[in-house]
């Protein structure tokens, strides 16, 4: 029988122990990535999967790839993901309602079909010759072996990949470049606009937010002389986010002002 089987040590070898502990955890983390609602939690689980894969690479005689996996994936790529998550909004969670009807059952059925096909295929696959470990190829050292291949057989793909990296970096810069649609107004223009505008109501600037004895942050509007809240005194983006507090909760009448008698 010359199937894909490559016996690595006995059933209770260290690698088997490593695999049977780490592989279920990796599988669960990947599954969790699919099921958790928040994108940040997905990112954390993804980082775990990547570190686990790095450990698998090192266990399989690919220490160079293992280190590269940690440096490039968990170091650079995951940080990039988290950075973009922070930019887009950490608490942006997916609504898990389906927009295309029947998509989820179909996806799960297709996944079961595909996964079953792959697993049964792997179980039946044969190599056609006896499997050997990577120890002989790693005899001169893993890094040396990879370098030898990279700079002889694969030197042309290696150069193409470097061009690809530069192109990707340039592309990202072009995409991230941001043109202002309008010129930024200068202080002089703003001043002219204020005094030559339709009314002089805001000539001295907009009113400041409320200052109360118990709260003086920018999220509480100031009170007008008649007791109503001044809409112009809080930032428009705070209003749009719904982060404006109601000033009536800081009124004197709502506070217990009785002084307790000393006993």
């Amino acid at each position, binding site marked *: 029988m010359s199937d894909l089987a490559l016996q690595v040590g006995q059933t209770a070898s260290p690698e088997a122990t490593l695999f049977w502990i780490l592989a279920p955890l990796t599988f669960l983390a990947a599954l969790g990535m699919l099921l958790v609602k928040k994108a940040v939690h997905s990112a954390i689980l993804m980082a775990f999967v990547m570190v686990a894969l790095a450990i698998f690479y090192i266990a399989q005689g690919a220490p160079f790839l293992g280190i590269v996996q940690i440096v490039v994936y968990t170091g650079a790529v995951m940080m990039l993901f988290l950075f973009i998550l922070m930019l887009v909004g950490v608490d942006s969670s997916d609504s898990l309602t389906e927009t295309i009807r029947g998509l989820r059952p179909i996806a799960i059925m297709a996944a079961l079909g595909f996964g079953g096909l792959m697993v049964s295929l792997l179980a039946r696959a044969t190599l056609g010759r006896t499997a050997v470990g990577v120890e002989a190829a790693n005899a001169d050292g893993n890094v040396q072996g990879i370098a030898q291949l990279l700079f002889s057989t694969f030197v042309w793909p290696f150069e193409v990949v470097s061009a690809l*990296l530069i192109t990707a970096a340039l592309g990202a810069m072009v995409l991230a470049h941001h043109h202002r649609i309008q010129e930024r107004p200068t202080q002089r223009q703003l001043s002219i606009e204020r005094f030559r505008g339709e009314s002089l109501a805001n000539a001295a600037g907009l009113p400041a937010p409320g200052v109360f004895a118990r709260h003086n942050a920018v999220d509480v509007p100031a009170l007008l002389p008649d007791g109503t809240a001044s809409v112009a005194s809080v930032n428009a983006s705070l209003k749009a986010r719904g982060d404006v507090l109601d000033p009536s909760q800081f009124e004197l009448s709502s506070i217990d002002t009785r002084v307790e008698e000393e006993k």
Partner: protein
Amino acid sequence: MNAANYLYLSALLFTIGAVGVVVRRNAIVVFMCVELMLNAANLSFVTFSRINGDLNGQVIAFFTMVVAACEVVVGLAIIVTIYRSRRSASVDDASLLKR
């Protein structure tokens, strides 16, 4: 233990990634699922390199990592650009051509 067990794990991870790409709607999560699929393929490459006893598989996995890094850079730049104009990172919201 059989080294082919790594291949089964790789197949499962790839399947999970594929389902994630189809089911999830947050563009960043979809992207992470694509990364998961690439990583699963890498695990296969490394395992086959071991079964075959030469390092070509590891070199290919190395190239996959580089291409994945490029893909992440450009893809995240696209997500940021879309987010900037539409204030949403959902893949369902970018449907102007449909209407």
